[in-house]
């Protein structure tokens, strides 16, 4: 299997860019429909099913409507930033997909084409860098609208996204420790070699990552920037027409990317479970499936049908997480703002920090003892992580942290006051029977 020539590389890269861009845009359009359908099903309705079979053309109708609508421009808005907001929010959401591998390499007569738009060596760092740019779109839109609701939405967005970026980054650090590299292709490969997806040996990191990703994409229960019930429409109150439509598009593109990222980082990417035949990694210029007992590489057997199968596997995993996003959205109500900040800074950040240390120590001791990287290595890490996860869930579970600020203490004073039949004197002031708590 020869290397791609310069021309073949250019052609392949162009085709991949076009295919992935079209694919992502198409999926984003369908996600808007899927969300409405799932919302409807959960509420025992049917949802939009009139435009085309099963309503599949509804996104087209929506897009047409948005193009034909009037583009309002608030008189007091800061025009350039107001226009820049939606763009700045959509573009990072779309470009992050470039470094996610979505199938096993495809052998062609001109050489092997790896199924990733750009296998850049900085991999996950590129994603973290660009996805954190998305907050500027929201903040800029909220600020430039010159509207108090938009302003509050943008303000909350910046605080929330900056806070959860920390926990998100730290949970990725754990993956990096185990994978030993930042490229996503190598992370997939390391999971294939371990025979265990990182969701098991790094279970707590997975939980933290899912929670932070929900916050980063501004999805319920963390949709503070939008918060229809209290902020009208949040940061996009003043937007209309296609400018408005770009915000939901960005949100769904973010959802798609972070679902793909969850699948790649923690569920083996395009790996098909219990089957070594699909494993492939570029090792010193050749595609290998793994190493035999003596440590010499076994060449990978690539085939077009394996590419299709692995793409299917990737699609199934990604759609599972997208469904999880929507399922959670229609189950869990929104957090209060202070609860979000508490969860981010007082729970997720220390947990992630401690977990990074635990994993680092475990990995270091495993390597010192000389356990070879593989299933046993992963199993030991799985047990350590399971313990950490159990402790984390036990602490978080009982409403010690997630209930409101000092809720428990105030409630105790209230009960005490009622039993004694007099006014409660609390550290929060003299508060009648305490019902204002």
């Amino acid at each position, binding site marked *: 299997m020869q290397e791609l020539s310069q021309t073949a590389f250019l052609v392949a890269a162009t085709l991949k860019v076009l295919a992935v861009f079209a694919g992502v845009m198409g999926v984003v359009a369908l996600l808007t429909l899927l969300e409405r359908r799932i919302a409807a099903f959960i509420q025992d309705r049917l949802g939009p099913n009139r435009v085309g079979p099963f309503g599949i053309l509804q996104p087209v109708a929506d897009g047409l409507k948005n193009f034909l609508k009037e583009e309002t421009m608030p008189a007091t808005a800061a025009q350039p930033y107001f226009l820049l907001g939606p763009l700045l929010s959509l573009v990072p959401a779309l470009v992050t997909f470039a470094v996610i591998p979505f199938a096993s390499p495809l052998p062609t007569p001109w050489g092997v084409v790896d199924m990733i738009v750009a296998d850049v060596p900085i991999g996950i760092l590129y994603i973290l860098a660009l996805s954190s740019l998305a907050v500027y779109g929201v903040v800029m839109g909220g600020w430039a609208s010159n509207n108090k609701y938009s302003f509050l939405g943008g303000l909350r967005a910046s605080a929330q996204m900056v806070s959860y970026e920390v926990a998100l980054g730290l949970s990725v650090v754990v993956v990096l420790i185990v994978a030993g590299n930042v490229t996503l292709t190598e992370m997939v490969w390391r999971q294939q070699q371990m025979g265990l997806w990182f969701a098991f040996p790094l279970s707590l990191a997975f939980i933290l990552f899912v929670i932070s990703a929900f916050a980063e994409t501004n999805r319920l229960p963390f949709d503070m920037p939008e918060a229809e019930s209290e902020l009208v429409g949040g940061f996009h109150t003043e937007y209309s027409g296609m400018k408005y439509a770009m915000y939901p598009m960005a949100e769904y593109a973010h959802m798609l990317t972070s679902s793909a990222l969850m699948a790649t980082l923690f569920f083996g990417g395009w790996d098909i479970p219990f089957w070594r035949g699909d494993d492939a990694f570029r090792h010193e210029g050749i595609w290998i499936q793994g190493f035999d007992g003596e440590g010499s590489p076994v060449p990978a057997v690539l085939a077009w049908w394996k590419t299709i199968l692995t793409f299917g596997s990737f699609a199934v995993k990604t759609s599972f997480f997208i469904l999880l996003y929507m399922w959670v959205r229609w*189950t869990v109500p929104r957090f209060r703002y202070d609860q979000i900040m508490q969860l981010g800074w007082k729970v997720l950040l220390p947990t992630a920090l401690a977990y990074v240390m635990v994993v680092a120590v475990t990995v270091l001791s495993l390597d010192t003892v000389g356990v070879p990287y593989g299933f046993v290595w992963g199993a030991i890490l799985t047990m350590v992580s399971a313990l950490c996860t159990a402790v984390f869930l036990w602490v978080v579970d009982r409403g010690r942290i997630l209930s409101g600020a000092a809720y428990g203490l105030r409630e105790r004073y209230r009960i005490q006051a009622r039993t004694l039949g007099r006014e409660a004197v609390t550290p929060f002031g003299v508060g009648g029977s305490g019902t204002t708590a």
Partner: protein
Amino acid sequence: MPPKVKVVRRPEPERTSYLRATLKGMALTFRHLVNPNKVTIQYPEERPVLSPRWRGTHRMEVHADGRPKCVACGLCPTVCPANCIRLVGGEDDQGNRYPVVYEIDEFRCIFCGMCQEVCPVEAIHVGVDYENAEYTRDRFVYDLDRLMEQDHPTALLWDPSDPRSE
């Protein structure tokens, strides 16, 4: 405390399992997600089954020879709480009273059905019908001809299965 008040003790936050509660919620929404019994009625193809007591668009009963049954007694405009019936009575050569003008403004009507209840000759009725959308507002004032043209079933103002009604 009155004897019939049930006091529900709210569990203390420290004793509530938040994860279990969330998972229960997720299970509930999932059951609804896969539940095939949806409440949506696919309107133009499917129609809701209306109660025989449904009070909708009015209709005027007619005699076999095509005259309206109305005798222009004036009870329905009197009883109408929304004041939506306009009636001008007349008398023919034999001394029979008949409505010269009989108009119902369906916009003002509150569909209480009192016109049907009060009518001594069972002429005006509210009907088991709801599809009365129009393109202009003036089309909502039904004149006598239009009321006589209506062919939907008339409403029962009582429940035939309930002996205490009527």
